[in-house]
């Protein structure tokens, strides 16, 4: 097996980084800049996830020292080469955005308009790279000769849906953790006002609602992908599928993917529908559990597909 744990963890992290950025970008722009903190949180979360993913990828190479060869080649037909450049571009722009945000404090009268326009422009450009990044995690496997990966053109669809779903979920988890730490710091008088980082409970609820919608799309993508494989002309496609459905990977597939990544969070989100996070902590707990299921289930999805394709 040429590709194992470091690869699927990397695909999961890179997809989640792209998905979080994509979701936060939409949440921010569609509300006319109403979710700036969420957008920043997505960028701050995405950079370490992408960087850890790259480190895993390099360590997994047969010759890690030679990874720089990836940066001297631009091969359009190789999804790995394209992915290298997409990842490189996304991280680079994200870091530039962070540097600009940090520099804000040096301007007495707020950020100049030109810089504001630049961040807005770079943020928009990077959402294209985020979409390409999510897509690449699926295309990487789909462009191969392993029947489970290449037997259906819908694998990128499934992986993109999973990337956005896990991305939204990690945003929810991240937002809850930052909010909680802000509360603690306020209580300890370590900061004077509710910091810029606070993400409103309303936004968190909306993210959970959006994730329910994305999970439905992911569920449809999974079913279509499986049906396509079952009818694929590619040799070994239906055998590959049966490894997931009733073969050696059936347990992680049904429990980890179908239940944990899809049905349980969907059920939790529906049960929570229309409720707001208030003094009652139960709603928040349900949203947090649902999000954690999505994040862990997303990893299991990447794992079973990566391992199943090579067995």
């Amino acid at each position, binding site marked *: 097996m040429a*590709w194992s744990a470091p690869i699927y963890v990397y695909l999961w992290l890179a997809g989640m980084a792209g998905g979080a950025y994509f979701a936060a970008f939409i949440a921010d722009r569609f*509300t006319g800049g109403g979710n700036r903190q969420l957008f920043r949180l997505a960028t701050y979360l995405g950079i370490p996830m992408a960087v850890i993913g790259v480190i895993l990828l390099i360590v997994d190479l047969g010759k890690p020292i030679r990874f720089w060869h990836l940066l001297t080649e631009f091969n359009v037909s190789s999804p790995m080469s394209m992915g290298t450049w997409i990842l490189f571009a996304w991280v680079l722009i994200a870091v530039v955005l962070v540097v600009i945000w940090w520099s804000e404090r040096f301007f007495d009268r707020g950020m100049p308009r030109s810089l504001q326009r630049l961040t807005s422009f770079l943020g928009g450009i990077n959402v294209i790279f985020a979409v390409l990044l999510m897509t690449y995690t699926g295309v990487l496997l789909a462009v191969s000769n392993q029947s489970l990966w290449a037997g259906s053109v819908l694998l990128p669809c499934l992986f993109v849906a999973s990337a956005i779903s896990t991305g939204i979920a990690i945003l929810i988890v991240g937002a809850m953790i930052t909010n909680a730490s802000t509360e603690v710091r306020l209580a300890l008088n370590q900061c004077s006002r509710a910091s810029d980082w606070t993400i409103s409970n309303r936004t968190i609820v909306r993210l959970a609602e959006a994730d329910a919608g994305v999970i439905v799309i992911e569920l449809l993508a999974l079913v279509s992908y499986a049906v396509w494989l079952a009818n694929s002309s590619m*040799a070994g496609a239906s055998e590959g599928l049966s490894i997931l459905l009733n073969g050696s990977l059936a347990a992680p597939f049904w429990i980890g993917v179908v239940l944990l990544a899809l049905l349980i969070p969907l059920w939790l989100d529906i049960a929570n529908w229309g409720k707001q996070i208030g003094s009652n902590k139960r709603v928040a707990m349900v949203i947090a559990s649902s999000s954690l299921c999505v994040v862990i289930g997303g990893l299991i999805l990447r794992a079973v597909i990566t391992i199943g394709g090579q067995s």
Partner: protein
Amino acid sequence: MPKARLIDTSKCMACRGCQVACKQWNELPAESTEQLGTYENPPELSAHTWIRVEFRERPGEWLFRAHTCMHCTDASCEKVCPTGAISHQEEVVIIDQKTCIGCGYCVEACPFHVVHKDEVDGTSRKCRFCIDRITNGIEPACAKTCPTGAIQFGERADLIDMGIRKAQKLRADGFPKTNFYGEDEMGGLHTLYVLTERPSVYGLPEAPELATSAALTKWLIGLVTAGVVAAVPLWLVFRRKKQLSEEQQSKVEGGVK
């Protein structure tokens, strides 16, 4: 004129001379293997075994096929290689061991399961078509050693003629399923076969496909999923919020008036 080798399965007696000659010429180490209930050995191609006689043990009939790199004209391994380590030298598909980073993509992309990653060295390895021999006018070690002429080396065009005629003859002589493999597959293979059974019986794909054949479609499907399909729930949810805030705003403005 491109060279090729023609493997005639009707002549192969599974002596495995090709395996030994390949190991000798390329100085490849032996592998310790286990008895798996078959005379086939080693159990699969590896980074150190670049040609191997595959057995199909059926009652009353054994089929043998030397399995090695096809040196495809349209090579999946070359297409997906992210560092340009895999290239064509004339008809030979060769891995530059100094540029290979050991990412394993060629292993996943090869439709014939030929490329393998060396676990110790870390780079991908496979048959080099004895490029050092053929550029000096000597046939590859496997063809040179083959005692029955089951592996022949020569001009590709000549071997195609020879293979098609041999397949016709075998079909007439009581092997009705005999077929010639490799003329058009993957843009034309440089390892050609006369097969006495369907390719799938010998473990060959009936219709091998280039790994990158539907790549554009796969990219587009991913992009559409994100940009169009999955954006909808996010848009629905957050657009609603915008309307709300506008309502609130108008209330505030109304209050000021």
